[in-house]
């Protein structure tokens, strides 16, 4: 069995950045396993712009952003296996994979990086009533048909969920000649970026119905219409509030779920909140030598941050491959009031450097403070004009704060 310093599962934005970083930090043999026939992952179908503003200080399209990293990978002695699906990952970091040339084969990584990304929640997961006819897609599937295959899934569209992919597809389908009649969001606020509301919906006069959901899908062979209902505070449809929109297509943009089936099988501890691995600040999971980054770890809003996180994981994995396991001195990071989750969930005090805590608020809060507490003391407080669930926030803890930590650390929002 061939052994690599670092084996990376997934050749999307996370895997690419992790590979380059691992290589540049000294890993001598790096392997990327990618199931698609090209590198770049989901970026290949994200043809809209707005990527790279943080990292490259310019607005790039998804394929352009991917291209930068693919070229960096190609410049280095990084091995890439395309059309290769990983079937299994063991605790000992043996990876079982399959492709057309080699059949089922095994490789081992001294370190392994999980970079499998995420999948979309489907209609089924929401239990939306009605028929199971043609014309019902998750937004990402529609995006693949339109942008990669060059086919239009339908002409009259209703979108459920105001996630970014849904908003982007509202504009995209409009540009390609479809009429988008409505975007319904069950929450009182959009789950997508504000700029996407403006440039994808407002630009084309597409109405956004907050506190609304689709309660029935009609159709015989293909969708013929949807019933939309207003919901109460408990997200339950309000009887009598129903209205009907004839349409031939329904897109679902109702959230992303990290694809952690391999991680689970390997025994990696997962967080019920993020649905991704529980990690230390270096992105190491509960299994030493297995690292995670990108959307398989936590669903990011911006690919720029995926790259950043992947570089951290790549560097850490490379170090691990060289030096092996080291003793940890661990404290937990706990999400308290008004916070959905904090990542990393664990801080190893033996690691040097500052630690950035990423978190999401569980609602919209204006003029608030983000407070970090330890041992009954406030160790950091940060003023925020506004925090929203749709946008990931961060606070930086200096090495000095980390070294002084006594027991677990909590994070909360105070209005």
């Amino acid at each position: 069995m061939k052994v690599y310093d670092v084996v990376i599962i997934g050749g999307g934005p996370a895997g690419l950045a992790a590979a380059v970083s691992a290589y540049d930090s000294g890993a001598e043999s790096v392997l990327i396993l990618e199931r698609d026939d090209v590198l770049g992952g989901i970026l290949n179908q994200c043809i809209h712009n707005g990527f790279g503003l943080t990292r490259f200080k310019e607005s790039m399209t998804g394929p352009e952003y991917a291209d930068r990293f693919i070229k960096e990978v190609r410049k280095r002695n990084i091995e890439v296996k395309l059309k290769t699906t990983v079937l299994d990952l063991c605790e000992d970091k043996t990876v079982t994979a399959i492709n057309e040339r080699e059949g089922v084969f095994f490789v081992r990584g001294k370190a392994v990086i999980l970079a499998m990304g995420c999948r979309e929640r489907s209609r089924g997961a929401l239990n939306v009533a009605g028929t199971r006819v043609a014309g019902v897609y998750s937004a990402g599937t529609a995006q693949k048909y339109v942008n990669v295959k060059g086919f239009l899934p339908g002409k009259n569209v209703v979108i459920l969920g105001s996630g970014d992919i849904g908003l982007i597809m509202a504009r995209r389908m409009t540009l390609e000649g479809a009429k988008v009649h409505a975007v319904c969001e069950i929450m009182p606020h959009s789950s997508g970026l504000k700029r996407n509301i403006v440039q994808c919906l407002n630009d084309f006069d597409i109405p956004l119905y907050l506190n609304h959901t689709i309660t029935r899908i009609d159709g015989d062979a293909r969708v013929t219409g949807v019933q939309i209902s207003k919901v109460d505070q408990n997200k339950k449809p309000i009887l009598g509030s129903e209205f009907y929109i004839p349409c031939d297509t329904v897109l679902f943009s109702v959230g992303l779920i990290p694809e952690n089936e391999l991680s689970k099988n390997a025994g990696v501890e997962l967080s019920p909140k993020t649905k991704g691995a529980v990690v230390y600040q270096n992105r190491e999971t509960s299994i030493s030598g297995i690292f995670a980054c990108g959307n398989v770890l936590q669903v990011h809003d911006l690919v720029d941050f995926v790259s950043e996180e992947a570089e951290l994981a790549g560097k850490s994995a490379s170090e691990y491959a060289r030096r092996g396991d080291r003793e940890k001195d661990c404290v937990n990071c706990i999400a308290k009031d008004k916070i959905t989750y904090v990542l990393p969930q664990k801080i190893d005090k033996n690691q040097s450097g500052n630690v950035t805590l990423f978190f999401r608020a569980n609602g919209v809060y204006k003029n608030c403070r983000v407070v970090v507490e330890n041992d009954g003391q406030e160790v950091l407080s940060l003023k925020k004009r506004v925090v929203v669930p749709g946008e990931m926030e961060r606070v930086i803890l200096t090495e000095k704060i980390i070294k002084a930590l006594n027991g677990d650390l909590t994070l909360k929002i105070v209005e």
Partner: protein
Amino acid sequence: MFDVAVIGGGVIGGAILRKLSSYNLKICLLEKGNDVCVGQSKANSGIVHAGFDASVGTLKAKFNVLGNAMMPKYARELGVKYENNGSLVVAFSDEEMITLGELKERGIRNGVQGLEIIDQAKLRELEPNISPNAVGALLAKTGGIICPYELTIASIGNAMDNGATLFTNFEVDKINAGDSFEIYSANGQKVQSKIVVNCAGYGSQKVANLIGDYSFTIGGRRGEYILLDRESGGFAKHTLFFTPTKKGKGILISPTVDGNLLLGPTADEVDFNNTDTTQIGLQSVIDKANEMCVGVPTYNVITSFAGVRAYCDKHDFIIEESNVKNGFINCVGIESPGLTSAPAIAEYVVDEIISKRITLTKNPNFNGVRKPDYFFSKLTVEEKNEIIKKDPSYGRIVCRCERITEGEIVRALTQNPRATDIDGVKRRTRAGMGRCQGGFCQPYVADLIAKVNGVTIDKVTKNGKGSEIVVGETK
């Protein structure tokens, strides 16, 4: 001229067709859908019932018990997954315990083996997630589970391998009954046959009416189901039933042979073949499931669906030659336990009814064994690599959730009965049945369907005409 035309490509029609194919006969199957198995045979509980439920002396009781005994071998020959997981009818009161005693008695009179009343402690040992309110259960060791569409498709495929002809999109519209039967479809196809077997499920009354047979009425009862991710498949080991009351049988919780967990069905009367799910129905399934068990992992729902069970006003199966016309055989009102009964019904219809009208001689070339459609992921590494060496397309995973390869999909598109649409591929291979529900693999599957059939993607349908997956090119 065919010797026998079977109308309806469901589990009963399929089983009869396969049985017929073991004789020297010219036979065909007329299916109104774009594919076989698109009616109630594709959307039911998939239970191989033990046979204690049906009243003593009914056809239901007779064929249930016979079919239950035949099923393991029948499934094995056809390469269909079957599991003898056992059933539990759960009682929640002393009164219901009394009912269980009656059920057991009835079962014994029906000829069911392996029935045992168990107490609360034993029940909890068998099913740790059962509600603390459950006081005992009737354990039926011969109860089992099977995949109903896999079974139907395999029966029909095997019959076709043995010479049967399949006509899809053949909705029977007119029958001229003379010395033989001239059967016309709504879209202009015509078939002539000496004998007709009406297995048209929900449509069987309409078909019988075409020859002037008005002897029975078919009603529809819709059942809504919820399917959970394989991660939750181990939540229940047995098939869990409520004790039947005057109000009905309630829902069941069961593992499936593919490792998912199934909840349902509801039961409400519908006046047409309405397979819509409803908010109320789905909620009631969840509520009932939570009565049966503690901590039902409803966060793991991957899909919901509904099927319409066709039942007959006689409340028993009707399996007999029509009084109106010789050679026209009705096999109707086959509600539960129809799936379990299918192999036994097929033997009876062919050997006891059709044999009286036509001489049956064994087909010397008959081979009742069929290789499964879904098999690759179950092979050993060595077996997989041997196949990939011969056909590299088995090395390309298309459906990541269920790990279905390109090779398997192409095979489903080319072997009997050929899949022609997205749902057909899904039922045969499980591509698209997993947790992402086809989100990733559907465009890939569509490509393969287009490629094998030499068309563009905009001709590919979900399940037949009018269900095209895209409306046209963007440019």
